[in-house]
């Protein structure tokens, strides 16, 4: 292992290098660019023996990966925001084709107006495309999760595409020390892909085809069943990663100081680090608060969440994006998961950090206090309501 000072974007690039991706395809978009620039350097220097297909759009980038994966290659791409939205059609093709593509996504706001700040609206809009979704909190987690993603995506019981997301700028362009495992260790964890694809030259086969209602539903159910099996495969993959690399990736919903908590805040991505500090402060004051990090958004960790809130009075969910005509998308998901819970805590959807707004410890503290007050509203625009008060 080697300690390197890496941005979240370079953590993606190094993970693709260590995974020995065979076909890379990408189109530039801020703030994803340094990921694919670094990979271009790896390929140019011969460090990475891969075909790097520079395409004329994100739509084509993902099509290149889908077609390359259909023939059996290990593939990598990365994008952000508008690029991910343009890929939308191909996201469905990737999961339907059972293509084990791994994609890095730098979470960025969606236009208009143009904004390049951190915001989860891009990946939240892709919820129903059949991709496993991981949200990373640190650059170390980015690197570890991309490696884990390949094992998971190519697992015989899964065979689905996986996206590993990181918050724009907070991770993509911020450096921190990252432990980069040595290639031999990664090779032991992640051997070369064994293609399951039926597409092979010389064989009269067809991948894709068309069907009537009789067979179509079978294919859709297969994708759904594979997504459900991620729940069983993920812990086994993480066990192996722990044994070989020595890091515990924490499962789909890692928790922090939730023992005996009256209220729990659910966060995603970099907001979690801020909230962890606030939990420490509040616990020091004797307040019974805890934190849960929504690390895997698809498949959604329903059981973990229901177990977590058994003795909890109130839960808050912080969304760095929102759904028009609804509360925050993660809050909506949490709400759905809790419908069948034995104990259903009251729920508040906090909207904060939209379009790259900074979310300070002070604001997170106020979220906890709102929950502890017992008079929490259903939906709360955290930073904006504070701004209105300040202006007023």
């Amino acid at each position, binding site marked *: 292992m080697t300690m390197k000072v890496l941005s979240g974007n370079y953590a993606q690039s190094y993970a693709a290098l260590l995974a020995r991706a065979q076909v890379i395809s990408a189109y530039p978009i801020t703030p994803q660019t340094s990921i694919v620039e670094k990979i271009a350097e790896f390929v140019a220097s011969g460090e990475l023996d891969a075909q790097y*297909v520079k395409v004329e*759009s994100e739509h084509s980038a993902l*099509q*290149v990966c889908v077609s*390359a994966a259909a023939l059996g290659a290990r593939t990598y791409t990365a994008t952000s925001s508008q690029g991910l939205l343009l890929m939308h059609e191909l996201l469905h*093709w990737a999961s339907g084709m059972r293509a084990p593509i791994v994609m890095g996504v730098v979470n960025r706001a969606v236009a208009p107006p143009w904004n390049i700040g951190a915001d989860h609206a891009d990946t939240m809009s892709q919820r129903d495309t059949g991709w496993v979704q991981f949200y990373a909190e640190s650059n170390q987690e980015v690197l570890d999760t991309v490696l884990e993603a390949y094992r998971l995506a190519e697992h015989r019981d899964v065979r689905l595409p996986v996206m590993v997301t990181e918050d724009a700028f907070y991770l993509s362009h911020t450096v921190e020390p990252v432990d980069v495992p040595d290639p031999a260790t990664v090779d032991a964890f992640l051997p070369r892909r064994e293609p399951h694809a039926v597409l092979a030259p010389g064989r009269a086969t067809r991948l894709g085809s*068309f069907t*009537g209602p009789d*067979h179509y539903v079978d294919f859709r159910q297969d994708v759904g069943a594979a997504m459900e099996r991620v729940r069983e495969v993920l812990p086994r993959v993480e066990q192996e990663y722990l044994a070989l690399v020595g890091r515990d990736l924490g499962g789909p919903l890692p928790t922090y100081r939730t023992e005996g908590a009256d209220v729990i805040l659910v966060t995603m991505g970099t907001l979690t680090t801020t909230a962890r500090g606030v939990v420490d402060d509040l616990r020091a004051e004797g307040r019974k608060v805890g934190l849960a990090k929504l690390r895997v958004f698809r498949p959604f960790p329903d059981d973990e969440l229901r177990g977590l809130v058994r003795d909890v009075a109130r839960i808050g969910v912080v969304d760095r994006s929102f759904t028009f005509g609804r509360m925050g998308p993660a809050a909506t998901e949490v709400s759905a998961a809790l419908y069948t819970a034995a104990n259903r805590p009251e729920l508040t959807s906090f909207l904060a950090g939209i379009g790259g707004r900074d979310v300070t410890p002070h604001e997170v503290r106020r979220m906890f206090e709102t929950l502890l007050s017992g008079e929490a509203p259903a939906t709360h625009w955290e930073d904006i309501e504070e701004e209105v008060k300040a202006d007023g």
Partner: protein
Amino acid sequence: MAKLTIPAQELMYSGHAACPGCGPALAMRLLLKGLGPRTILSIPACCWTVIATPYPTTALGVAVLDNPIEATGASVSGLRAAADAMHLKDVEVVGFAGDGGTVDIGLQSLSGMLERRTNAIYVMYDNEAYMNTGVQRSGATPRGAWTTTTPVGEGVRGKPEPKKDVMAIVLAHRPAYAATLNPSFPEDFDRKVERARSIEGPRFFHIFAPCPPGWKFDSAETIALGRLATDSGIFPLYEVVDGRLRITRKTGELKPVTEYLAAQGRFRHLGAEDAARLQSEVRAEWDRLLRRERDDLSGSH
């Protein structure tokens, strides 16, 4: 009389779902005869999505990958990248797309594939409208043709705009090889497939593919109509290698376009003025091709 050179192997089987007299079916049959069994086809949404028959059957003796309508160029780039990365030998990667999927919605993807010099063959089989969805006009529909979205009435007399020149667009990318092919001339067709196979880099086929229900002619007349198209100069046969154009069929004087127009119901409403206009356009294009061929031969371009 030309020597019969068409390979005996059949990689398109009976039981396919094409209409009787289907030009695209003839195009596929001849193409695969020349390309052989180690072909990987990428097929977007088009007539051939259906002709190849539904899951779990296939009418093709080669590997086929389906792709969305606008992404065939990217798909062949992906297949070629994987074949190279995995060191698969003797694989011919081929995109097989309709005219709408090429000159309209797929133009960007095709341009990308040509510009990045993907070592693959891109085929546009041209039945001159969106036939699989029921005869809507495309950028490749010729001026004056009836389609369901360019109906014939008091105000409109078929498609008002001329056909998009796909070969000019492709040639602007300086491909390794580009040719026009017509299943009505199978020896010329097969020779071009063979020639393309001997060349590396981006290669493009523009294949004439008559559609009996869409063009409104008797399905027994497909071959005859195809011969008429070339011999009247509507669909001249040529190839471009290293930027040098060579016309591969010349028969002295061109036949009048009126014969070609009269053979199809989609042009039934056209008058003498329309025919005269088309005749002069065809004549000008034919003369341009002759000039270009002469210039290329003398190396003066």
